[in-house]
C-alpha cells in the first residue's frame, strides 16, 4: 500500500476529492487497521475525467458485473463514463485498494455544500489531501445502523450521545 502515491497522483490530475473512512480517521486520530483508501469525489463530468486519469495512471482495476468476474484495467476504458454507472466502486490497484464514493450516507447535503467544511491536511511525507472533518465523520457514523457504528471512533471524535443527540 502506498497512500502518498495514491493521493499525489490524484493531486497531479487535479482531482477534487475528500479522504473519508478508516484511512482519514487513522491519519488524524487513533490507530485502526485499514487496508483501503476511501475517497468521496466531486460528482461532475470534468472531475470524473480527472479521477479516471489518476486511476488509470495508478494501474487501477475495476469490475462491473454482479459476480465480479470481469476485472479490467481502468486504462483500457476509453472514457470516464464508467464512473456514472453506480454510486460506489471498490477498486484494486498495485498501490492499495481504493473505494470511490459518488455519494456518502449521512452527507446528503452533497459534496459541493460540504467541501468547505473539510480542511486541507498533509500526510507525514507532505502530500496534501482534503480530509473529511470530524463533525462530518460523526454524521457518517450516525447514518449507519447502530450495530455497524464504530463506537470507538465516535468516542475519539468527541461525540457524546447524551449531549449531542
Amino acid at each position, binding site marked *: *500500500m*502506498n*497512500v502518498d502515491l495514491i493521493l499525489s497522483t490524484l493531486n497531479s490530475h487535479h482531482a477534487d476529492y475528500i479522504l473519508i473512512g478508516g484511512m482519514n480517521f*487513522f*491519519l488524524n486520530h487513533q*490507530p485502526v*487497521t*485499514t*487496508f483501503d483508501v476511501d475517497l468521496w469525489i466531486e460528482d461532475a463530468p470534468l472531475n470524473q475525467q480527472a479521477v479516471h486519469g489518476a486511476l488509470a495512471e495508478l494501474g487501477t482495476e475495476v*469490475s462491473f458485473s*454482479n*459476480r*465480479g468476474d470481469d*476485472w479490467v484495467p481502468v486504462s483500457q476504458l476509453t472514457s470516464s463514463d464508467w464512473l456514472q454507472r*453506480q*454510486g*460506489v*466502486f*471498490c*477498486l*484494486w490497484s498495485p498501490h*492499495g*485498494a481504493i*473505494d470511490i464514493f459518488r*455519494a456518502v*450516507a449521512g452527507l446528503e447535503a452533497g459534496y459541493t455544500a460540504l467541501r468547505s467544511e473539510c480542511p486541507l491536511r498533509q*500526510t*507525514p511525507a507532505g502530500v496534501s489531501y482534503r480530509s473529511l472533518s470530524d463533525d462530518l465523520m460523526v454524521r457518517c457514523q450516525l447514518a449507519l445502523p447502530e450495530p455497524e457504528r464504530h463506537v470507538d471512533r465516535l468516542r475519539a471524535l468527541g461525540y457524546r450521545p447524551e449531549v449531542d443527540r
Partner: protein
Amino acid sequence: MQEPEQKVETLSEVKARQEANREAYLRRRFTPAELWRQQQAALDELARLRPDLQRKKPTPQ
C-alpha cells in the same frame, strides 16, 4: 402479465458485494504467500504514516 419486481440495491449493499468480489478476485490472482506479504507491507505503510503511534516498550524497573 406483471414483470417481477426488481430489488434496487442500497449503497451499502453495493459496497458489500463489491468488497466481497474484490477479495475473491485477489484470492484468485495472488497466492496466499503473496497476499500475506502484501498485508505485511500495508501494515508497514500504516506504521510509516503514523510514526507517533509507535511507542517504546517501557524499560523494566
